[in-house]
């Protein structure tokens, strides 16, 4: 095994493979920065180019590209408050809040360092976990996957706002997200639901225009209203100083970064959940790490832990989601489904062969993830100061550029004007949510999980009737969901009573 590990490294470092990996990194770097252009779309666009490549070269190119998309997507989220990728939206909440406080450098340092840690843990998981993970994946059926989704929503809904009313709004937002996910053709009966005879709505609402609308539009409107730069009128020298501080933050909260990386890896392994879910679960976990209710109030206002969690998780899921793809031929996400196509184009069949005959190729994938992330993070750190300075550029110079990114990013999702209308509609919803003090995170998680929740609920009921509710893992997850709801309430009560004691 050790021999195969080194053989894998040597394969990636061969001249042509290395060149293709660097090319892939270059493409992925810009794809991640540009909102709307997703990693999955770019994988699909690049697939025809691998015909003439060897398997190692092909994966070095495709994986090199795909594994850095989340890293640079985080940069757009931090600097502009626009999700560079669907999987980097959670970084906005605290990352962009930090940028507005003049801590863009620190936020970028934190997100890059945590991304690297996450990617390394995901890659290590891919290298080590295949024999261990097989029984785990097989234990998780539809009831368990349904409950994981419910736990995720419960976590976010209960943690993203304060008090009883905040929790009500959190659950309401999550419920609305789940409802919006029902738009489109129903997977069971084939009925067109809430499509109002519009062909555009038959496939449901795409995540990207909704995310861009709900997150970017309120920020842009506020930037225009303020008439200042993103970081306001803060002194320039504060921006670049924090990058090293951000790296230190990663090690200051190292166990949190590790835990969130493991969450990302685990969600990556579970087929159908994907990186968009991983980041929010990690964010919820990071928010839960606050010891007091007062400390928790700092989340969403620029707490670095809210950057470290999603930053680590959306990169570690890459290695995790490769595990079922490589080992069982079961893609964990749409990107992995496209990558699976790459396996067949390159003449490889996922499954036991990848762990025996083609083990060096499997390890070359591990090394590609590791090297691509290291190279990207180093390249980003070289330009970090320049990137951070964007936040002090005059607001009205940035607004039209951001508007172009937002309108082009939404449109390129499906090349349809409907995407722009959806983006603007959810922009208005997002603005009202921000103005009213409603949390947006549960809405997004509900939307991301909607189809997964519905499919798994339907299969659970059809296959097990009510008996699925008594499965041991389901019961454990149910208890976890209840704990997620009760924990902030208990924490708030404790804070009040301790304040009364001190008074």
């Amino acid at each position, binding site marked *: 095994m050790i021999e195969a590990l080194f053989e894998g490294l040597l394969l990636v470092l061969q001249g042509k493979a290395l060149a293709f990996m660097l090319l892939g990194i270059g493409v992925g770097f810009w794809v991640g920065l540009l909102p709307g252009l997703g990693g999955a779309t770019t994988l699909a666009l690049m697939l025809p180019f691998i015909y003439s490549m060897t398997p190692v070269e092909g994966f070095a190119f495709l994986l090199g590209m795909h594994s850095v998309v989340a890293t640079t997507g985080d940069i757009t989220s931090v600097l502009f408050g626009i999700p560079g990728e669907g999987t980097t939206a959670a970084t906005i909440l605290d990352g962009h*809040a930090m940028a507005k406080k003049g801590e863009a450098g620190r936020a970028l340092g934190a997100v890059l360092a945590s991304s690297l840690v996450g990617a390394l843990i995901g890659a290590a998981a891919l290298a080590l976990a295949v024999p261990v993970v097989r029984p785990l994946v097989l234990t998780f059926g539809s009831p368990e996957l349904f409950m994981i989704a419910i736990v995720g929503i419960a976590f976010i809904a209960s943690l993203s706002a304060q008090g009883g009313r*905040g929790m009500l709004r959190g*659950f309401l937002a999550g419920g*609305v997200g789940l409802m919006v996910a029902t738009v489109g053709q129903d997977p*069971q009966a084939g009925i067109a639901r809430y499509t109002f005879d519009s062909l555009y709505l038959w496939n449901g609402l795409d995540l990207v225009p909704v995310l861009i609308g709900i997150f970017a539009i309120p920020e842009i409107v506020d930037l225009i209203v303020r008439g200042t730069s993103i970081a306001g009128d803060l002194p320039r020298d504060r921006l670049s100083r924090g990058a090293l501080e951000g790296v230190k933050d990663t090690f200051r909260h190292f166990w949190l970064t590790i835990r969130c990386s493991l969450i990302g890896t685990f969600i990556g392994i579970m087929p159908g959940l994907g990186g968009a879910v991983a980041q929010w679960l990690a964010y919820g976990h990071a928010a839960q790490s606050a010891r007091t209710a007062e400390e928790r109030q700092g*989340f969403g206002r620029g707490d670095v832990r809210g950057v470290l969690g999603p930053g680590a998780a959306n990169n570690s899921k890459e290695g995790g989601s490769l595990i079922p793809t490589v080992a069982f031929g079961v893609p964990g996400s749409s990107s992995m489904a496209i990558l699976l196509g790459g396996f067949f184009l390159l003449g490889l069949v996922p499954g036991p062969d990848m762990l025996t005959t083609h083990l060096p190729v499997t390890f070359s994938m591990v090394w590609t993830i590791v090297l691509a992330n290291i190279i990207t993070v180093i390249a980003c750190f070289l330009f970090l100061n320049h990137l951070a300075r964007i936040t002090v550029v005059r607001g*009205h*110079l940035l607004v039209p550029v951001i508007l172009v990114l937002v309108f*082009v990013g939404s449109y390129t999702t499906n090349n349809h004007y409907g995407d722009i209308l959806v983006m603007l509609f959810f922009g208005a919803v997002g603005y009202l949510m921000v103005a009213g003090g409603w949390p947006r995170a549960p809405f997004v998680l509900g939307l991301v999980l909607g189809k997964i929740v519905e499919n798994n609920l339907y299969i659970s009921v059809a296959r097990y009737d009510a008996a699925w509710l008594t499965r041991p893992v389901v019961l454990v997850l149910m208890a976890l969901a209840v704990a997620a709801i009760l924990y902030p309430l208990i924490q708030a009560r404790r804070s009040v009573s301790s304040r009364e004691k001190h008074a």
Partner: protein
Amino acid sequence: MHSKASLILGAGIMLLAGAAIIIALDWPLKAKLFPLAIGIPVFVMATVEVIWGVLDPAARSEAMEFKLSEQASGRPGAARALTAIAWMVGFLAAIALLGYPIAIPLLVFLYLKLQGRERWMLSAAVALAVWGVFYAVFDELLHLPFPAGWIQQWLGLA
């Protein structure tokens, strides 16, 4: 602003959830199971939220995330927000009428000149640069289709 936005949102969700439930009632069980299972609790929660808002409009609940700046409050703030919305609607109209390749430099130039009160040269240079990046990345490199505007179509230029 805070309570008004919440009330609009709560009432809007209540109405939409109610309509969604009524529409779903006509579908077969397989199709309506999930929309009803989610729609009914959402309707109930939205009703509670609206009643809560009406009975206790002063009660605030802060979400742990981005908040609008202080300048957004009051009449001047509302007027500026409306200006921002007008720019977006204008951009949408320009895209539909003229297509992306013309709408993009036009928006950038007009925004910098009218809203930002920048110099002519700077406005034109930034507009050209943004158009250049758009053309190089999306047209030349990725070959993504951006249709011509309605005006070009009416004039038979597309």
